[in-house]
């Protein structure tokens, strides 16, 4: 049993837990523990941290916290606490929340390994997400991935410097040539190091493999003409 992947499921709705359990059974043999509150989840994770650690945590974001004295009121609190305590566990958010703000908050601040939506989720997707997580990769369900992509595009559109870099990049054979071309709104020049950092971020945001790919994607997405 030592090789079994230990999974903890935290959700306040028993029905959802049942659903996940069924799905998990379909995709593999796991050592699964369930809990209805974040506090309990945290305790379990922390207690087993060194003896018999969980590899994966499935958690909802919203918890019905009518009980008094609850410390961790929602999924965000739980993830935050885990990161803070250095509990090493892959986190898969499985929730109904699709509000961009909340999704963005969770992804950018808590950086969970996977983000699944209850309503669209299938057993196959859960299995795929587990595989990815175990390989130290990320998996966001399609809707969330698209959301984040769109958001990145908007962010780039708002970012004048990013736009400048994207526009100027095709005109210069080397990145070093961009130095002295890219300017802040107050006219100050941007240093090469900042330009390179920006480019790296842009590649990540737009899922580009290299700078040429980045330009192509930017054009494709209508960020630049």
């Amino acid at each position, binding site marked *: 049993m030592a090789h079994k992947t230990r999974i903890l499921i935290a959700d*306040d709705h028993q029905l959802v837990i049942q659903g996940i359990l069924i799905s998990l059974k379909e995709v593999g043999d796991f050592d699964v523990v369930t809990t209805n509150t974040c506090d309990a989840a945290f305790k379990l994770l922390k207690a087993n941290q060194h003896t018999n650690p969980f590899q994966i945590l499935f958690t909802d974001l919203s918890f019905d916290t009518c009980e008094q004295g609850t410390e961790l009121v929602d999924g965000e609190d739980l993830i935050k606490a885990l990161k803070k305590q250095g509990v090493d566990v892959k986190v898969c958010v499985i929730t*109904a929340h699709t509000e961009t703000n909340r999704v*963005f908050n969770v992804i950018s601040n808590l950086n969970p390994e996977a983000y699944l939506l209850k309503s669209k989720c299938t057993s196959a997707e859960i299995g795929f997400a587990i595989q990815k997580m175990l390989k130290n990769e990320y998996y966001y369900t399609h809707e969330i991935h698209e959301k984040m992509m769109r958001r990145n595009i*908007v962010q780039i559109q708002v970012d004048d410097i990013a736009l400048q870099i994207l526009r100027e990049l095709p005109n210069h054979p080397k990145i070093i040539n961009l130095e002295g071309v890219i300017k802040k*709104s107050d006219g100050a020049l941007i240093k090469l190091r900042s330009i390179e950092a920006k480019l790296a971020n842009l590649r990540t945001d737009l899922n580009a493999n290299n700078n040429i790919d980045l330009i192509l994607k930017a054009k494709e997405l209508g960020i630049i003409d």
Partner: protein
Amino acid sequence: MKQQQSKIFLLMFFFLSFPLFSQTEENIGSSDSIVMLLKEYSKTKDGNLPQKAFLIAEQTKIDSVLKKTYFDFGLQSYFNKDTANIKLTERKLQKLYSQTKEPATLAKRYYYKSLFHKVQLRADSAFYYLHKSKNISIQLKDSLEATRRLLSMAAIQFFEKDFLGSEITIIEGLRMVEPLEEVFFTGLLYERLANVLFITERQEEARKYYLKFFELQKRIPKVKLKYEKVRLNLHLAKTYEAEQNYTKAIEYFRKCLLVDSVKTKSTYRYEGALEGFSFSNFMLGNKKLALKGYLEVLKSRQARGHKRGLIFSYSLLGELYADDNKKKKAIFYAKKALKVAKEIRQSAKISENLFFLSNLVKGEKGRQYLAARAMLNDSLYKRERGLKNQFAKVRYETEKKEIENRLLKQENSRRKLELERQRQQKVIGWLLAGGSLLFIGFGASIVFNRRKKMIFEAKLQQVAIREKERQQIAKSLHDEVAGDIRMLHLKLATNKHLEEAGKLEVIKENVRNLSHQLSSESFDSVTFKDQVINLISDFFESNIRIKIQEIDAVGWLKINNSIKRTLFLSIRESIQNTHKHTQATALVLEFRETKKAVFLTISDNGQGFDTAVKQKGIGLKNMQERIEEINGVFFIESALDQGTTIHIQIEKYGT
């Protein structure tokens, strides 16, 4: 008695000498015709001439000419004893003064007024106006003019036998004139002083001052020293005569008489000298010589019609005859003297002759003379005393006034100080009042501002609370309502109620959206900028291109979350409105920040609406309410086919 007589000689002498110095005031007029008229007036004494001269002068309209004409003719009318014209001059000067307001003119006016009284022998009034005139001159620092008035005043006092007063006046004059190094009036003052000394039996001193007078006379140009020597010797003779040193007196009288042409050129002095010479001889028993002299003097005086002199002559003759026991002749002359004395109201001489007659005439007649004399003396004494008092009073009142003035001045300066002090206190008071007012205002404004800030903060708190409530509702909707619906949906799905399941799906979606609308992320975990970007990315696939301008120009970290929430909700509402209603293809969010406020302008290029016609929708109304609740300013600009622009301004600190 002889003493008294000799005094009277002197009186007469001064009356005669008075016009002499006044004469010098005569100057040659600027206008020839006026000069001509003046000359004619002095000769003919025609009372119409001054009027004419004044008319001519008034036509020139030159002040100096006018004044000079008034002065000259005024003085001449005094010499002419032309009362009407003195009065006229005085009136003219009064008129001139009322126009020019020159104090000097007023001083002159008083002078002529005094002359007017003097001509009418009203010594007290004359003295009074001289005094007034003098005081003005003193104030004007015109010492010479003041000296002249003082000289006249001293003369009046002397004639009225107020010798002490006269002496005081003279000394005042001397004090006034001495710094000027002037000779003419100084001399006259010395002479007057010597006269006073002479009459008050201080002959040594009198002689000293007569000599001083003479010394000064020497320094005056154009003065015929020969006659001045006569004048001196005459004075000196009188002093010896008063000391009953008749031999010495005769010696000096003789000196006078021996000067050639004195008889014709200076008749009155010749008469005086001869009379004195005769009197001294008479006193030494040389009666024949005395009689001869008396008669010559009488003849001369009769020829000149010199009435005052005639009294002396008659009296002396009467005395001489009485001494000779020629009673009839004595009575004859005494009666003559009495008659002339009565004519010119020479009271002292009247009294003297009455007494003389009472001695000469026996019986009832003699007694009557004595009684008349007693009565006269009584009234004389009264008058003398009255005048003295009058003079003293004039002086005293001036002094009193001066003291009063001084007191007033002190009072004034005291009052000024008091006023100054009060003013200062007032200023201090005002300053204090202003200060405290400022302080109160300051305090009030602090209190007011704090209150305002507290209200503002309370409002922000309210926004935050409402936000929390919304969250709660959103959470309930999501977790409970949506959860229940999901369960129901699942049941329906498993029971093959597909139609109902589909409807329920729609409801679920709506509830979810509602929940999303109500829920929000804290700005502490997701920044305002990121939230705006998230919001915009939600509309990514719509046909509107949303542009954000200068979002980094605002220091969002320092801005209250409730303000950010309000702005965020406003942006979402605007975008939704634009998306739903306007068919706009572009929407611009423009941010700006000042020291005190944050500005947001949301403009689209949609169809717009006529703000005058169309009411705001509930969304816009809510937006406005939210903004105004936290002291913000909201206004919307729109016109058909012109797009819509919303301006939002929110004060960062509520003031």
